[in-house]
């Protein structure tokens, strides 16, 4: 199977576009999901600053967003994307639904990572006069760092999967190439190459994430 120079350029471009979408979306989704996840823990029943109404409302909203299949969300959000960016096509436009679709999922992952932090350590910090903000910034987040890193690796690969789905609605990146050439023109070889590239990218993110998580975790000797 030999590809023309143009085709190879297309693959390269698609890969770079996919990287761009995934990295940007992950960063923006964490900007929303991380504080939400922290808020879920802090405001919980046994949290350091219980706020039952806020906690329950947040929980419901997150569950609603999470229960919508991403492909549906992708289409449903086109007016929103168009309102923000003026277009719903291309890789930049895809970032909007990617962020909205993955932030709730990230919030839940952050929540579960932070809940793993030993309650005794939090109690010790309280006994030293730490404020809730200090507990979040100096105890919860640093102590949960390895687990948060594993979560981030999972989040990146999930977002990568979502970004490929966006190919069906002109989202750009490797997904679009797979849809345009593989689905519409029956060029199975092109589809297989994009698939291989996607698998390779997932592997890289996953391996790097796990490696970092293991290296920064000081609980092992």
């Amino acid at each position, binding site marked *: 199977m030999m590809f023309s120079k143009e085709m190879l350029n297309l693959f390269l471009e698609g890969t770079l576009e996919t990287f761009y979408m995934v990295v940007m979306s992950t960063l923006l989704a964490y900007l929303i999901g991380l504080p939400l996840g922290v808020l879920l823990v802090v405001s919980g029943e046994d949290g350091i600053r219980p706020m039952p109404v806020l906690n329950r409302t947040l929980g419901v909203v997150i569950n609603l967003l999470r229960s919508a299949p991403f492909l549906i969300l992708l289409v449903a959000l086109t007016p929103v994307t168009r309102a923000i960016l003026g277009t719903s096509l291309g890789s930049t436009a895809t970032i909007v639904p990617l962020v909205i679709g993955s932030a709730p999922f990230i919030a839940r992952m952050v929540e579960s990572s932070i809940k793993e932090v030993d309650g005794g*350590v939090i109690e010790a910090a309280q006994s*030293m006069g730490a404020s809730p903000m200090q507990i979040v910034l100096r105890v919860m987040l640093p102590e949960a760092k390895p687990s948060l890193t594993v979560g981030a690796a999972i989040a990146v690969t999930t977002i990568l999967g979502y970004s490929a789905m966006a190919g069906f609605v002109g989202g750009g990146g490797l997904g679009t190439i797979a849809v345009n050439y593989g689905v519409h023109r029956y060029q199975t070889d092109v589809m297989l190459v994009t698939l291989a590239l996607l698998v390779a990218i997932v592997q890289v993110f996953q391996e790097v994430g796990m490696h970092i998580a293991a290296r920064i975790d000081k609980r092992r000797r």
Partner: protein
Amino acid sequence: MDQKEIIRIEGLTKRFSGKNGDVVALEGIDLSINQGEIFGIIGLSGAGKSTLVRCMNLLERPTEGRVFVDGQELSALTEKQLRQARRGIGMIFQQFNLLMQSTAIENICFPLLLSGVNRREAEKRALELLEIVGLSDRRNAYPAQLSGGQKQRIAIARALANEPKVLLCDEATSALDPTTTRSILLLLKEINERLGITIVVITHEMRVVEEICSRVAILDASHVAEMGKVEEIFRRPKTAAARRLLFPGREQRAEAPAFGAKNQRMLRIVFDGMTPFEPVIANMVLVCGAPVNILFANTRAIEGKTVGQMIVQLPEAEDAVSRIEAYLNAQNVHYEEVTDDVL
């Protein structure tokens, strides 16, 4: 009594609301702890002692009653004032509760950084504290690389960082082996003497109280059953709760055989782990040529050392008694005479 009071608890009651109605953890506790003393609070598990110590820095809010520390009524402070007050009350825990992702020195700096001390100052202070707890060479180790005793030493250094007036110890030695327990207790005693910090020790082990406390409160079923000087309580426990803690397992034993006259004298012999393992009592009987009746014994051999206590009934002959006392003195065994209501 010219001793200054540092902790006062008045009419403290703590109830937890559970699914099956309220659970009373503490009821009508009145307590006064003097500046500079080591005060023990002992009780069986479930007696409410951990809740009580958590009321002393308001990690647990009392349902009723008032808590004063260093003249401040903690229960009347705002959140912000309370955080400030807590900086003057150090606390250590059974499970050490160190930051697992931070090194020893970072753990000790932690409370200082919380109070806004700059990093350079904090590290300087942390190095001094590492010196006090004898772990200067482990400053860059993570908690996972330290033994239990070392972790507790780091926790003690951390608790002392803000120069507290009071140090609360919640079962601080319960996760440690006897030898390490002893070294931690000695460290606490040294800190108490050197820095004049008042120490409150929560424990279920009588030997901890015996080793370092000057006064003790016995907590039983949410109430203070008995309170007083440690040696007083050892000599004449007034309540069943105190006797249960002093002489565990006694209730399962058949009634002590009543040998001889009712008013016979008794000795409590304490094996503190410093006596090499040898048959002290048997030798005593042989050397002194006087039989004794063992009324109670609770001893264990740990790493070749005997730990525990024994109560023996003394023979009637005066000269036999003085021979026994002389023998025990010579063997460096701690003993004291007790009245027959201890059992």
